[in-house]
């Protein structure tokens, strides 16, 4: 190991030849950027020359060119190990860029196409009497539906989730705790449509008419495991010293949990609950099965068909008209904004209330 000095960043010294390291030559600092530009040029060049019409292929060629160029150059100029390191760095960068492109495209498309229809009228009117081919109409009924369904689900799921997490962290030891842990994990993986089908099977047996409440019940099933998981993680972060101090003062265990453990973790728990809300707010499948959707305003979640934002988007997309697709994008923008704001606030709380840890 003669070149122990050459770790971490590709040496910060100027590109001029000569010693960035005492033992061997190195590429200049701007090399990765240079490789990237070269790769893009090659990709665009080959793409244009071969007349490929899909930009996806241009991108793929550019990526491959970038990786090959950086590996070969480094292995020639430096050595095999550095080349491998450089390759890994390049791959990691490429991964990131690859992922960011579609994600930004999605946000950009939603915003740019959503603002076309989105205005006060859109937010305050329902679809009553608006044919799908005509512009006009709005999401008010869907907004109400989403808020009510998600609200009910939250009210049911949060206490159950919290108590289960408390059980797992503070009480659970034996076979029951292990079973609950296992099934919480499994439950996290339950597809939303299966949760919907479960409630549907109950509905079919009792002949219940569709209502927002049924949708909320399905959403509850989806929400509980998420709340349990996040709360559990947060409770585990509470230092044992706090519990022991409280118990040593003679405080009963339940008060220790309520007054010491939960308040310490409250920031993280709130965040977890809000993230769970954000997750279920976007669920469409159970609504299709259980709430049926409606173009009219129905503010009673316990009776009659309701709509919800995700369902509305699906409905307008399926209609396939220009006007309805515009509405779908606008509703998508509303939904994304709702979810994102929840997320931002949740993470803000998490940061603000975060227990001080070492790292």
């Amino acid at each position, binding site marked *: 190991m003669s070149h122990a000095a050459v770790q971490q960043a590709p040496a910060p010294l100027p590109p001029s030849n000569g010693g960035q390291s005492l033992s061997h030559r190195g590429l200049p600092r701007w090399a990765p950027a240079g490789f990237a530009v070269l790769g893009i040029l090659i990709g665009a060049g080959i793409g244009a020359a071969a007349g*490929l*019409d899909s*930009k996806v*292929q241009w991108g793929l060629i550019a990526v491959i060119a970038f990786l090959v160029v950086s590996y070969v150059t480094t292995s020639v100029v430096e050595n095999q190990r550095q080349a491998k390191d450089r390759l890994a760095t390049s791959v990691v960068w490429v991964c990131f860029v690859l*992922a960011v492109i579609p994600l930004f495209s999605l946000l950009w498309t939603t915003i740019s196409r959503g603002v076309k229809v989105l205005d006060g009228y859109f937010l305050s009117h329902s679809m009553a009497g608006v044919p799908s081919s005509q512009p006009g109409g709005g999401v008010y009924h869907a907004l109400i539906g989403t808020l009510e369904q998600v609200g009910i689900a939250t009210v049911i799921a949060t206490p159950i989730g919290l*108590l*289960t997490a408390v059980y797992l962290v503070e009480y659970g030891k034996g076979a029951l705790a292990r079973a609950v842990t296992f099934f919480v994990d499994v439950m996290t993986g339950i597809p939303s449509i299966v949760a919907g089908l479960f409630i549907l099977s109950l509905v079919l047996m009792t002949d219940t008419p569709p209502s927002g409440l049924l949708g909320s019940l399905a959403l509850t099933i989806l929400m*509980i495991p998420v709340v349990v998981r996040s709360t559990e993680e947060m409770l585990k972060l509470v230092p044992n010293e706090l519990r022991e101090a409280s118990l040593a003062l003679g405080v009963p265990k339940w008060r220790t949990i309520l007054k010491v453990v939960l308040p310490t973790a409250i920031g993280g728990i709130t965040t977890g609950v809000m*993230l769970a809300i954000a997750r279920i707010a976007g669920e469409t499948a159970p609504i299709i099965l259980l709430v049926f959707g409606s173009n009219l305003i129905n503010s009673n979640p316990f009776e009659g068909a309701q709509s919800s934002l995700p369902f509305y988007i699906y409905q307008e997309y399926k209609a396939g008209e220009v006007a309805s697709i515009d509405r779908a994008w606008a509703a998508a923008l509303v*939904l994304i904004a709702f979810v994102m704001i929840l997320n931002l606030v949740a993470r803000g709380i998490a940061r603000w209330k975060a227990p001080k840890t070492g790292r």
Partner: protein
Amino acid sequence: MASTTPMDTPPAPPLSSKPGTSTGRAGDNIFAGLSRGSGILLLVIMASIAVFLTYRASLALSKNEGNFFTTFEWDASLTPPVFGIPVLLVGTILSSIVAMVIAVPIAVGIALFISHYAPRRLAAPLAYVIDLLAAVPSIIYGLWGALVLVPYLDGLNLWLDQYFAWTYIFDQTQPGVARNMLTVGILLAIMILPIVTSVSREVFLQVPRMNEEAALALGATRWEVIRLSVLPFGRSGVISASMLGLGRALGETMAVATVLSPSFVLSFHLTDPVGGTFAQNIAAKFDEANATGRDALIASGLVLFFLTLLVNGAARLIIARRKEYSGANA
């Protein structure tokens, strides 16, 4: 630790005004009971999902004129109902595999990027962005996939068919635009990317600093540090992250329902615009289904349920075997 250690000398007059002396026992029992109760409730829910779905499914299966496991059609609402799941099973597994193959390596790459490669100042905002995108609802991915991604992938689709038809999976035998399993897989990959990334990243950040510094001190390059200390430490985390992703991919409804052009044709060619998945089929067929039709859809949902159960269970076992670091009380 032992439950309630206080030396309960006075036989407890209920509800004294002194906090935390006497009400302890009863409160403890109630609270412990409540929390155990909700744990049990969870198990009950899981059990009843299996039981009720099985019951409804059996109603439909008893009327089925076809064979549930070998019939290649879905006419559950006809008078002699005929339906079978092989097309759906293949479609579900195929699209999920495509999604995993694309998503997991890229997600690990991004997680490494954020935890180890990105410039310090950028790392936090980037992680934040990825986290936010995990929250994008699936229907919006579906909308974007159908209206934006499909046109983009048309060219790639043609190209793959032209030059890689010999791989069999890229051989397009049915005409049509890119509303196929490949596109669905790519879209699912994009959808599960943020989840897999954020879980993996958390794990990578927990790698003991000492391990990394020890590797660096031995003269390892950054990649060698990652290979020697980060990846071995993070493996179980990556598996659990992938499991979360796979679970989401298997049961994803809306993204598939909007992107795929479904039909009951069994095809292992990823570029054929045919096939279907369990969840997509349920969403698509539910509206026009009669009573038996709904039960039949429930039957297919039951298969999906057991599929996800199996995947999650297996992944859990893998993780349990490597569980050295549980995080808390370490």
